[in-house]
């Protein structure tokens, strides 16, 4: 107790020593820094390349961001309970292959294929729950195991080949086709807005409302903040963890189906690349509005930020191989903002 008091006094003395203006600036940067950079970037790109600012290009950007946003929102939910879901990429691959396979190889209808895809996400979520909640394996380790297991299972299921219309199954060309309902997810539109943007928008609203306005969202954050105190306050911690991993798995499955519908085919391990993009979107999101924790608006911003940045740089003929570096830079800046400028958390 006494040590804490001393620490408090020292903190107070330190804060008083700084000029107040500097403190204010720090706080403003912490809260709005990333949004200001995003706005400035969009303004500059629009000024330098008039096409950048058009509605059409905005749709391109959002479309590019949509899949990452959906998986990233899933990651965000798993992060709110203090976890980390590395298996989203593999859940995505599984859903891609299962839903495409359901239509092409088994002649199932679009809605049935979507149901199959979602069931895959649910199954991965339940398996993660088993490892993390029942077997008490640490989140990172457990979901890493799930990643390999699910990827391997997907490969075994399709014999290592891609799923596309007219593919050969046991030497015979498959007769199944991608159903129009399913294709709509990838290429349709609603009121002039691309379908994948609509889906991502709906997912965002769902996660945003869940995390910010419902009991369950509050409980998720409580579990992530202090699981012991959460349990003491009567929150069923195991149940929250389970719900979070199921949501994460299902959102990854939705993202997978969006991808399959866009490319009209299913390629093995296609989800792997999305894992890190999704995680980085969620982490960039920590810096939005000084949240300093996983949050839906931040993740969406993170996904859109990266998409807009890459879109703009491509217009300036920036080499494609520099994209990764730029993305890394963004992540570092965002993390520095939230961890160095934010209020110091204890422990």
């Amino acid at each position, binding site marked *: *107790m006494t040590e804490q008091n001393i620490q408090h006094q020292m903190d107070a003395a330190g804060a008083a020593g700084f000029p107040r203006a500097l403190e204010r600036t720090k706080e403003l940067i912490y809260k709005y820094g990333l949004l200001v950079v995003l706005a400035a970037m969009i303004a500059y790109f629009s000024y330098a390349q008039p096409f950048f600012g058009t509605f059409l290009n905005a749709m391109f950007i959002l479309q590019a961001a949509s899949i990452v946003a959906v998986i990233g929102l899933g990651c965000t939910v798993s992060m709110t309970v203090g976890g980390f879901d590395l298996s989203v990429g593999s859940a995505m691959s599984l859903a891609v292959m299962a839903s495409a396979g359901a239509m092409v190889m088994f002649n199932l209808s679009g809605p049935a294929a979507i149901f199959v895809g979602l069931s895959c996400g649910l199954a991965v979520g339940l398996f993660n729950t088993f490892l993390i909640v029942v077997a008490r394996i640490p989140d990172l380790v457990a979901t890493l195991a799930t990643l390999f297991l699910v990827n391997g299972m997907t490969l075994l299921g399709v014999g290592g080949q891609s799923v596309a219309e007219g593919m050969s199954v046991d030497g015979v060309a498959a007769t199944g086709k991608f159903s129009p309902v399913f294709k709509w997810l990838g290429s349709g539109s609603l009121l002039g807005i691309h379908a994948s943007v609509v889906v991502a928008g709906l997912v965002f609203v769902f996660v945003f409302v869940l995390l910010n306005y*419902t009991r369950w969202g509050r409980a998720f954050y*409580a579990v992530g*903040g202090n699981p*012991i*105190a959460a349990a*003491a306050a009567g929150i069923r911690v195991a149940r929250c963890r389970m719900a979070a991993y199921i949501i994460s798995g299902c959102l990854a499955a939705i993202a997978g189906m969006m991808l399959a519908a866009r490319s009209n085919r299913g390629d093995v391990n296609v989800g792997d690349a999305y894992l890190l993009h999704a995680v980085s979107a969620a982490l960039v999101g920590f810096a939005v509005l000084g949240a300093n924790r996983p949050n839906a608006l931040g993740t969406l911003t993170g996904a859109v930020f990266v998409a807009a940045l890459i879109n703009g740089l491509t217009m300036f003929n920036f080499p494609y191989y520099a994209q990764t570096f730029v993305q890394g830079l963004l992540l570092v800046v965002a993390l520095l903002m939230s961890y160095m400028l934010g209020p110091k958390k204890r422990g």
Partner: protein
Amino acid sequence: MKPVSRIGAGGDSPPASTERSLVELRSISKTFGATRALDGVSFNIGKDETLGFVGANGAGKSTLIKILSGIYRQSSGEVLIGGETKTISSPTDARSMGIATVHQNIDDAVVFGMTVAENLLLDEIATSTSEVFMNQRLILKRARSVQEKLQLELPLTAPVEALSASGRQEVAIARALVGNAKLLILDEPTSTLSAREAEKLFEAVQDLRRRGITVLYVSHRMSEIKMLCDRTVVLRNGRIVSEQVAPLDTRKIASAILGELVLSTKHKSRMGDKPVFVGKGLRARSESAPAELEFRRGEVVGLTGLVGAGKTELLEQICGRRPLEAGDMRLHEKDYAPRDAAAAIAQGVVMVPEERSLQAIFPGESLWQHCTVGMMAFFSRLGFMIQRKETAYARDVIRDFRVVCSAAEVPIEDLSGGNQQKLLVGRWLKNDWSLVVLDEPFRGIDIGARAIISRALREYSKHAAVVVCSSDPEEVVEVADRVLIMVEGRVRHGGRADELTSEELSEIMSQTAYHEAHDGREVTLQ
């Protein structure tokens, strides 16, 4: 059967003169900011003796231990080792001077994932002078020689986590002794042991004594002190208030620990009316004596007893936070067996836990979120939180409990301990519950906050049962109508709070301990 009791062994206790002393403390003081944790503490630790070191929570025991083990530096005063003034500037320093400490939490002293042999040699492995390449054979060889020297028998190749708590403690003690320790400090060594495991420790301590190793034995349990120690020093409010030589009088020790209590009730004790909670055959720990408890509407029950008596363990079982050891509970004359805290809260039993930052605080979250987190169902419709209602509730709590804060939206870390506690207690008391249990609600908070909380609890108890638990009897008597005293797992009924005297209190605390030392030990030591 080994003779365990030291009663009547006063004859061979060494006199604590300077020539015979191993470590001498001369007017040691330690201040933290404005707080004076130690105030001119002087005493000797004699060669070959087992010295009991006791005191209530916050008396300054741990500060003194930390000074001796090189974690803190004293603000003034000096430490003499073997007659020479020494500066103990680091834990390594302390070890090289022959002072070894085994801290309360056993698992902090051993490294999981390593074998017993590796743990024994940890200090050697960790120093830069050791070989870069160390293979298992070499480690095992060295560990064997250490084991021979210490005359111990440990399963050297077993992973340390496979050992029982007392086994791990044995390793921790052995590790402390590897470097030729002359003084071994045991800080509450039995606090995490079962009764049976504790017996093993007592034998080990007596063995150490026979081999001429001085032990500073820190404990809250009177029976252990009486059984093991040649001499006892009592610390209170940073000063030595009593020194006694065996045969020890536990009654005197107890009253020295408690000090001159001001057991003043400003109210007349009420006896309550309708029984809310009835517990039969409850046990704090599996080996504790069974207890019959009844908490009634219209009274505040105070539960007191020294640290480690089993108060928290008992209360946590009642509130669904710990599996029930034994017995039956009834709430409002219906069977009551909550499987977790959520179930207990749903049935109207809430608890304010002992460790605020560990068990009640969500880092960075606002005051209003803390106010409603345990009862979110009340503040939501169809799962959607009604934030307006939440903030209004939080403002009510803040106003009624005079929580000093700039707004309900600030993070809880911005508040002082007392204000945090007012909020964390107040959030429950603005709703109807059957039983409200508070574990150490007054720890580390100011008098103002304490008065506000006490008054609110007495008011609230008019229509609910309230239990306040504290190791400080003064705190309990101030708020309670009826006092229960817990001694080493047993619940003793102390009767009306306004009739309890300090003499009676120390009588209960020490007498029971004395009997425990006699009857209890003989039975379990077969």
